[in-house]
């Protein structure tokens, strides 16, 4: 049983990553979008170092949130259109493994590139080097949670306008935004930030089972 679960998971991962690599826009688009948004802030606000470094946590986090929700509707839309989703629902048990795999893939092709690009963003926004690790940690936890939340939005708005799936989950991303920026801001002020990271971790830990189950429920709605 366990091995078959692992097999199913690895098949979905292998297949979707293969497809993602053959269509490079899937992982390049969020990356470029993130960097462009970050670049626009100095252009709009002026290049003063003190201003930019104090705004950096917020700018990086807003750009990361938007970039991670940019392509969120593609998580299920193609599989739904070509019938692969039916296949998975029928041959896979439990179904939330499918959702979990899809979330992982989405994170690998959006969250991970954002994580890499955030270092560049931190440099051009003059974020002190000491804050790099807290920034990466907060983005790691936060973008994972956004992928989970995004999957639910994608499932609920399957087949509707692409932007809808992002908009309906944006209000729910407020805690992630606040915690994420608090982590970086606290590290800038030499304050303890581990508490915020723990809460983000707890949200992720509860979100994985909870949101995956609700996403299954939302996906099944599309078959009725």
């Amino acid at each position, binding site marked *: 049983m366990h091995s078959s679960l692992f097999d199913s998971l690895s098949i979905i991962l292998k297949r979707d990553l293969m*497809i993602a690599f053959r269509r490079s826009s899937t992982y390049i688009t969020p990356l470029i979008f993130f960097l462009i948004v970050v670049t626009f802030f100095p252009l709009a606000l002026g290049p003063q170092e003190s201003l930019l470094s104090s705004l950096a946590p917020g700018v990086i986090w807003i750009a990361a949130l938007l970039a991670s929700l940019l392509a969120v509707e593609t998580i299920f839309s193609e599989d739904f259109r*070509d019938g*692969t989703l*039916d296949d998975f629902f029928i041959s896979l048990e439990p179904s939330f493994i499918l959702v979990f795999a899809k979330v992982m893939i989405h994170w690998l092709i959006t969250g991970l590139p954002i994580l890499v690009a955030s270092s560049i963003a931190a440099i051009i926004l003059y974020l002190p080097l000491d804050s790099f690790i807290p920034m990466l940690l907060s983005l790691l936890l936060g973008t994972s949670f956004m992928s989970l939340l995004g999957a639910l939005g994608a499932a609920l708005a399957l087949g509707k306008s692409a932007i809808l799936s992002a908009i309906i989950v944006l209000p729910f991303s407020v805690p992630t935004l606040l915690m994420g920026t608090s982590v970086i801001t606290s590290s800038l002020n030499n304050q303890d930030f581990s508490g915020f990271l723990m809460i983000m971790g707890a949200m992720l830990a509860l979100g994985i089972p909870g949101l995956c189950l609700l996403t299954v429920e939302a996906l099944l709605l599309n*078959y009725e």
Partner: protein
Amino acid sequence: MLPNLKVENLSCVRSDKAIFDEVSFDVLPGQNIEIIGSNGSGKTTLLRTLLGLITQDKGEIVWLDDAGKYHNYRTFECLYQGHQLGIKNLLTVFENLNITKHAKGMSQEDIYKHLERVGLSNVNEFASNISVGQRKRIAMAKWLLKEFKIYFIDEPFSALDDTATLLIEKLIKELNAKGCSFVITGHRPSGIEATRVEI
């Protein structure tokens, strides 16, 4: 002979309209069921209900095997092929067959053999470049990966030329001989030997 699947008085209502009403049939090993109905008569919904994608409003679906009774299809080895065939455009013909749960542990030669059996020779072509009829053939090759107990195929005969139609009929007969059953849908009775259920 005991049936593998018993469907009793199955009904489905959506927006206060019966999509199908009081459908009953038994799927016996090695025998086929053909569900006949016009467009929009709920054939696809019926298949999806059988496979648990939709919850029925009334009636029972019971799966039986030597070990006992189940209310869940997942303990059974079933294959479902919907209108959309579940074929990925960015994978080659070979990969579309190879990267599936049922092809695990299968050698490359075996997969080539299955593809040849359904008349596909362009194995390294991307699925986006091949015709609808050939896509159907990829889906058919999936039937051969394993001997599934029951095959649920939504409109297998649509958009096919004569040779492909003959091929399907032959494949179904062969698999029937091995004890596999087919539940298929269509607009009008096809050439295969089956119990017809009209909805």
